[in-house]
């Protein structure tokens, strides 16, 4: 059966990986973004609404990060090993950040006296998690020191100005997604507040992206050559431009569903641009998808179970659960 597939198994798993990253960015993006926005809103009633809007789904969203990790481990073990060795400290930082923000969902409701502590953890954790993810992407674009299938650089190689810029960009970008989500899920004052923040955050995103673009061109990264070689990639920035316009229109017309959808479209365009720039490399520019792939016996074992059965089931129940929790969140929704 595998022989008759229109794609090779490494390509299939690279596709699943790309899909998982996209799903992760779109889903955990908005709830990390709500965490970033938490810093900007000190109103306790608003904060409870913000928390309530993501509480039923954040855990599932974050699980996509583990999915990414294990797909890499299973289908591209070399990349998993190199990537995590290269980003040893940022990954540790990311995990600590996610721990601090993850416990806040329960802990902040357990006592008022220490609520500030868990709120701080929630905010700082969300910001750091977003920053580290952006910085890692930046460092990937700039390139990782690899020899003979192993990471040979130092623990702080990733920390370049370009990576910092990308990190900041993702913090603002996730906040944009989060504000869109709040507009979608909440009502009243909080929705107005989120509406007010959307254009500002959008400006921030555009500024960072422009700065990153200039840095990329000046830095003469290899990615530029790939853009020149594949002019059709210009399609994605155009799509992003349309999304920006749509977002602003949505804010003007106060159509609650539109900003979040358009912010997501913006992320999809950026992601497609990035994926298009990397293809067919999985670890730019050292290992291609085919070179990095696990043996066929590993890939087919995962293909028959996960690819054909489990993944469709997951998509079905994930959509089902989002459907159950559709609509506006009650201002006081909490099980605590």
């Amino acid at each position, binding site marked *: 059966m595998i022989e008759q597939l229109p794609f090779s198994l490494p390509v299939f798993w690279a596709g699943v990986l790309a899909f998982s990253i996209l799903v992760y960015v779109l889903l955990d993006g908005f709830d990390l973004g709500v965490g970033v926005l938490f810093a900007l809103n000190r109103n*306790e009633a608003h904060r*409870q609404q913000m928390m309530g809007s993501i509480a*039923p789904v954040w*855990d*599932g969203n*974050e*699980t996509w990060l*583990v*999915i990414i*990790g*294990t*797909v*890499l*481990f*299973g*289908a591209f*073990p*070399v990349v*998993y*090993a190199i990537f995590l*060795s290269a980003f*040893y*400290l940022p*990954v*540790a930082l990311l*995990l*600590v950040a*996610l*721990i*601090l923000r993850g*416990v806040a969902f*329960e*802990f902040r*409701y*357990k*006592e008022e*006296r220490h609520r500030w502590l868990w709120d701080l953890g929630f905010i700082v954790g969300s910001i750091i998690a977003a920053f580290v993810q952006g910085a890692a992407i930046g460092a990937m674009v700039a390139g990782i020191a690899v020899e003979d*299938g*192993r*990471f040979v*650089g*130092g623990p702080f190689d990733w920390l370049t100005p370009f990576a910092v810029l990308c990190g900041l960009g993702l913090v603002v970008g996730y906040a944009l997604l989060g504000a869109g989500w709040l507009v979608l899920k909440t009502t009243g004052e909080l929705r107005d507040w989120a509406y007010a923040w959307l254009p500002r955050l959008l400006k921030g995103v555009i500024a960072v992206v422009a700065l990153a673009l200039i840095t990329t061109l000046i830095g003469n990264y290899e990615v530029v050559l790939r853009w020149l070689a594949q002019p059709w990639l210009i399609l994605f920035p155009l799509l992003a431009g349309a999304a920006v316009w749509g977002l602003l229109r949505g804010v003007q017309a106060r159509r609650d569903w539109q900003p979040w959808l358009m912010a997501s479209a913006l992320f999809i365009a950026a992601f497609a641009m990035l994926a298009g720039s990397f293809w067919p490399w999985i670890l730019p520019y050292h290992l291609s998808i085919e070179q990095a792939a*696990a*043996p066929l*016996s*590993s890939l087919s*074992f995962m293909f028959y179970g*996960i690819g054909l059965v*489990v*993944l469709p089931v*997951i998509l079905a129940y*994930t959509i089902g*659960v989002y459907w*159950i*929790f559709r609509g506006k969140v*009650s201002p*006081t*929704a*909490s*099980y605590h």
Partner: protein
Amino acid sequence: MDIDPVSVSRLQFAFTVSFHIIFPAFTIGLAAWLATLEGLSLFTGRAVYRRLFDFWLKIFAVAFGLGVVSGLVMAFQFGTNWSELATRAGPIQGPLLAYESFTAFLLEATFFGVLLFGREKLPRWAYFLSALMVALGTTFSAFWIMANNSWMQVPVGYELVDGIFTPRDWGEILFDPVLWVRFPHMLLGAYLTTAFCVAATGAWYLLRGRLLNEARVMLTMGLGIAALLIPAQILFGHLNGEYTAEHQPSKFTIIEGRWQTEQPARLILFAWPDVAAERNHFEIALPYLGSFVDQGNFTAEEPGIVTVPVEDRPPFLIPFFAFRIMVGLGLVMLALSWGGLWLMARARPRDPNQLPRWFLWATFLAWPSGFIAVITGWLTAEVGRQPWAIFGAMRTAEAVTPSLSSSVALISLVSYVIVYTLIFSAGTLYLYRLLREGPSDPAGSGPADGPAGGAIGIAQAAAGLNPGRPLAVGGPHPTATTASAPAERTPGMAGGPA
């Protein structure tokens, strides 16, 4: 610096995994317990099951959250600290862990959200189904983790291609008899852990003379489930010993505490091992039984650890003592569960409240027995596997990330220790408070423990979504208007049936 990255990484792995395992050990059992309660509530309609469900769901929420965040770390540590292992064994371990994340993590995380927030949005059967899905997810998770770990203990179904462990036969890996004795052992361990927490909570309330109805159900069900499971657990424990004897003589001889080869072999119950002198002090041993336990006869020769080359021996003391603690706790659980049922059967009227106070105290104090047994069991298995990462095939020292320095590894280790200490202390405190407070009382004055800053509107909305509240009770408690009190101070509790 005389510490090497291997030691720091091992310490970090041991620390993070020991911390992590506490929560799955609890939540695997709790998920099954919740599904059982919701099922009972659905089919019998008795309100007490619903109250217990709502109560244990809150406990589950805290424990599950801690399990999720500490589990994240585990998913990435193979790459950060053990990249050589990941590179070489990734083709086998990676797919197993990928199956875990796809079949288990998403399932439990998604339906966990439904359990917490979906009560009013779903028909009862669908809610029950969600509880089953969470329980199924935790079970899948245990299976794949045990599949992964069992392969590291006894690697099968692979061939080495350019130094890469390449899967040759997945059937052999998934239907390895070793996996199928270790998976039930872990699952039963988790169920017993939860059963004793439930029974201990019941005993605690009885000792304090409150929530008698709930306490009765918890004590009887907890002890009953434990009494049923513990013989099976002892059987699977024995089978684990058999695979160890067959495949891992280095671990087995340590568990047995046997330095020299003996024929017939004694069964060493307790001793103080002297590693330098390679002998035991203060041995308490039963003659012939060592041969009997391993071979089923009284004359067999049993090897001592001296038959294993020094460079292939694990550290002696940890597996030796950890194993004895685990077995000892197993016997305590056996005595308490069977003894408790016997005392209950004798009591007139048949009521847990007639149980002697010393027994209630013993059951209450036994709450951590499952946790300690699970951790010491893992210590036995994992430290006993050393010096191998993959037993007999790849050493732990070869598995570590080549670019990792001790100082960088120390930074992450120290960060994890600080953060885990913080969240563990807080989590334990919050769990303790929830347990002390108990289920909402049946009189209807359910806890108005919604978020602070309350008003009647909040309480009413919370009533709709709050599983801490019996189904039969719709409206908010009058005192809910003062719900600006901290969450754990529930006005309803003061007027409990105590």
